[in-house]
């Protein structure tokens, strides 16, 4: 009983400790992708999805221009990895097409070529 509690606490602490500290210099790099996002819901999906990517400090999508601006730490991630992350959320990033399965699972209104 006591040990279980301890074990749980340890689990939570180690989990939160793994968010390490980065070196300066590589922080605050910025990249822009042209995506296939079409609506406000896509914005929420993309920004939330990227927030969970390692090394991402900030992500924001401008729905009108479809441009996603990502601020990241080059020490922990790369432009390629970020592109892949966008694809796995179901959206194209520049020339890299969306992962088909992820695209299929998007809501109807988020599909770029939704035809009804």
């Amino acid at each position, binding site marked *: *009983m006591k040990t*279980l*509690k301890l074990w*749980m*606490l340890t*689990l*939570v602490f180690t*989990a*939160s400790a793994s968010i390490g500290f980065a070196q300066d210099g590589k922080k605050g790099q910025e990249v822009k992708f042209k995506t296939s996002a*079409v*609506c*406000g*819901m896509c914005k*929420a*999906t993309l*920004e*939330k999805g990227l*927030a*969970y*990517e*390692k090394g991402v400090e900030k992500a924001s999508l401008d729905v009108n221009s479809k441009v996603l601006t990502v601020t990241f730490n080059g020490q922990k991630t790369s432009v390629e990895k970020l592109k892949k992350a966008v694809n796995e959320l179901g959206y194209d990033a520049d020339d890299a097409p969306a992962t088909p*399965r*992820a695209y*299929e*699972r998007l*809501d*109807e*209104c988020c599909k770029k070529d*939704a*035809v*009804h």
Partner: protein
Amino acid sequence: MSFKIRQAFCAMAFIWLLVPFLASAQNLTGRVVDAATSNPLIGASVIWLGTSQATSTDANGHFSLKPAPAGQKAVLVSYLGYKTDTVQVEGRESITVKLKSITSIQEVTITGKQDRYSALSPTNSQVITAMDLTKSACCNLAESFETNASVEVSTSDAVSGAKQIQMLGLDGSYTLMTTDNVPALRGLATPYRLNYLSGTYIEAIDIIKGTGSVLNGYESISGQVNVRLKDPEKSDRLYVNLYGNSLAKWDANVNTSFTLTPKLSTVLMLHTDQLANRVDDNKDGFLDLPLGKHYNVFNKWKFNSGERIVAEVGLQALQETRTGGQVNYRSGTPQQEGSFYGTESETERVSGFSKTSYTFKNKPYQSLGLILSAGRHQFDSHYGPRTYNGYQNSGLANLIFQSAFGNTSHTYKTGLSYQLEDYQETLAGKELQRRERVPGAFFEYVYQNSQNLTLVGGLRADHHNLYGWVYTPRFNVKYDFNPNSIVRLAAGKGFRVANPIAENVASLISNREFIFQNNLQPEKAWNLGGSFTQYFEVGERKGAFITDYYYTTFQNQVVPDMYSSPNQVVFSNLEGRSFSKSFQAELQYELTELLDVKAAYKYFDVRSTYNGQLEQRPFIPNHRAFLNLGFATPFDKWRADLTAQWFGPRTVPMLEQQAEGNLRTRTVSPYALFNGQITRAFKRWEVYLGGENLLGYKQKNPIIAADRPFSQDFDASMVWAPIMGRVVYGGLRFTIK
């Protein structure tokens, strides 16, 4: 560019802009937008009503439709995930159509805030989302309502660990439970039914107060709880949830989903929970929670032709054993004076349902649906020296045709249903048998004007082989004073055949004699009520205020009287009045970017006639309060929830020193319960830690005569507060989308 040239250019441009209007004066042009956000809807279809002449909107939501064939004065505008609308266009060349979104689960999940009160549905309904379900101790339906103010969950007795829901101050059996809108877990499954669906199977839960629609039968009296199971098309490829608590109870859940072809998908969901640790914290010699093993599997299939046919099939099988009673009781210990008292139950249940819907060509508002379901529920149990065994076989067929009169302001649903139930119970050697065959027909008409009024009128006629014709009318009205102030009224009748033993299993854990008055009749009740919803914004933060009042009055009720005599439970038809008055006021507000608050006050006045006297129903406090604080950092990386429930003073019977035939009661003090949980989310992992009943409030001596379990006085059913003190739990979730 000189000034003149610029002027000429502007004039030219202006004429060019006019050209489309001049050249095709009869073309209907316009725009289709989302009613809530005014965002353009891309690819919405616009069709002359009753023809095949159609077009769809472009990237800005604009469309242009060729002139109508002779006589068409209306277009039908439809878009997936939105309510189809018919628009009268006579004499107009350009229209703007605002489509209302059908509150899709996805939408709710994205915004993922508190359970919301729907602004669209004609009934007083709210949704608990999958996100909300992760806020409280997982892993079954009983724990799913912890952060919701409308549904209450209470422990039924001090031995079996069974939990019951309550709505409007009425027992859970008056609430119709459906899974994917198919009636489920009825009849003999009642005692432990909240354990039969794992939280991980659930996409969302709809709670509807009042009698609701006639489509799902005649049974709902206080309301409906609809559990939406995971959608195979949208489920994660892999979802694992592991849970353990300080009593050494543990849970494991695995969901996996496959897309076999673009049209066919399936989700397979497994759940088990186990408790092998004997806990007796209150030192009364009885286990506070029964030992148990539970295995549960659910498999759901979905076929979506993409065009007009959608079919779903769900199959469930479960097996559960529970052993409770005195700490030293072991399976097979003889149940007699001088031995150890024990309870055991073994349940096996298999059930399945299928739903098929066919949408007619070019008539998105017209469809035909067939729902089939069947199940077998079997259990063997003993509560001390008393054995209680039984089974129930059920079958249900429901055929629903949906269409419109003229245009989609007037829609209707009509159809036929057939229900069969085969009940067999044996209690201490006494056999009870019942076979129900109920064919029925129903009709529901919905009027919706384009702005602010919805009327729903429904009627069912069923022919019950034991009780003859049953008529159930139901009405719902919704009126929007403006988009933020909505009033709803509801009136309807409900009918159900009670299962007195299954609905009062708690009383089996006593040595009371069960006495059934002859000729118990079905229960019938009217439920009348209304609600007022006000959405508001204060300092750019959204909130909602919801208040409702419901009055339920029984024309007949099977009244279990365990109060007039300490040694008996007498089941009789209602003689006199029995009613419930329920008032609730709830406030939801986003206090800061990160903090949501939900507070509610509830007042219940529930009375029944016992022995010719109209008395307060014991155990139901008049006043209750509820407070929920929900904290979440951006993107929900950290979430924390704290829920407090306060129960006012309540009347409980005093059985220890009671003369026959007169109810002696005392009042017990108010108490409060606190639950809390913290969750940390990563890309694929979530870790959570929480506690239930944080202050550890417990009922002292919940079991009467716990030291003499085989004597006349023994009774474990007089329970009004938790049996368990503080329980700490933790776990993790892992998802591959």
